[in-house]
């Protein structure tokens, strides 16, 4: 069949909406003489097989691209996950050290206050 005589295809929107999840309903404007249903239903799988073979290089390249892109994304996120886990451990170690230092200074300050002794304010209270 000549390219110009190929049937015009239109997705049947209404039917598509009624049947959510089904992308299999189509409406065709077919030239006279083009096979009618159900022959079309049998013809389409054959055409799809031809299409696959005619576009095999494109299909292989598309698959390779998808796999590569997904693999790269997985590696990038895995790297970020490891980095975040490392940072998390660092933050927790810092917390420990901050608490230790704070305790140390507060203890020392209490001792220093004791050495200074009570401070008498203007109102006479210590």
């Amino acid at each position: 069949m000549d390219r110009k005589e190929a049937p015009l295809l239109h997705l049947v929107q209404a039917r598509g909406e009624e049947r959510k999840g089904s992308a299999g309903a189509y409406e065709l404007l077919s030239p006279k003489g083009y096979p009618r249903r159900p022959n079309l239903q049998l013809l389409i799988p054959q055409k799809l097989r031809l299409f696959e073979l005619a576009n095999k290089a494109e299909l292989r390249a598309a698959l390779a691209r998808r796999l590569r892109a997904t693999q790269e994304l997985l590696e990038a996120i895995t790297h970020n996950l490891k980095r975040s886990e490392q940072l998390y451990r660092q933050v927790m170690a810092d917390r420990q050290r901050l608490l230790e230092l704070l305790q140390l200074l507060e203890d020392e300050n209490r001792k220093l206050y004791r050495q200074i002794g009570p401070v008498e304010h203007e109102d006479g209270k210590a």
Partner: protein
Amino acid sequence: MGRHKVKLELLEEAQRRLAQLAWLLNEPPEELLQRALALSDGPVDERELAALEEELVEGERRFTRLAAQLSQVHGRYAAVKFELFEEFQRNRPLVVNLAGALAENRRLRRALGRPEGRDDGLVRELDCFFNIYIQRDLTGWGAEGASEADGGE
């Protein structure tokens, strides 16, 4: 040339094949169907087609496995990032308290006529914490690049 309208529903196998092609080539199925119908009839090399389909099915399986792994890692990453942010924020007031305690310590030492220089190491450590937790936000501290992978999925 006259045309007539035909309504049809693809057979299950054709639907599956068309959906696979549309996913792979990232094109609407109706456009692919249009392109397929425009092809001239010709012989189909069954062995070549079977090999190609096997390759595509295997590729799709690999993709499904990768996508599952990706979803798992992404979920874990989101959780760790959230926890990291929370814990990072909890360290901030501690650094401020530490700076306050150190200033108080110096003041008390001065009041008692004690030397103030012995806590140089502590001052350096405090400066370091100050730089990390007060002057920068979490992104500037080392989680850079995280956003590149965040939005890409």
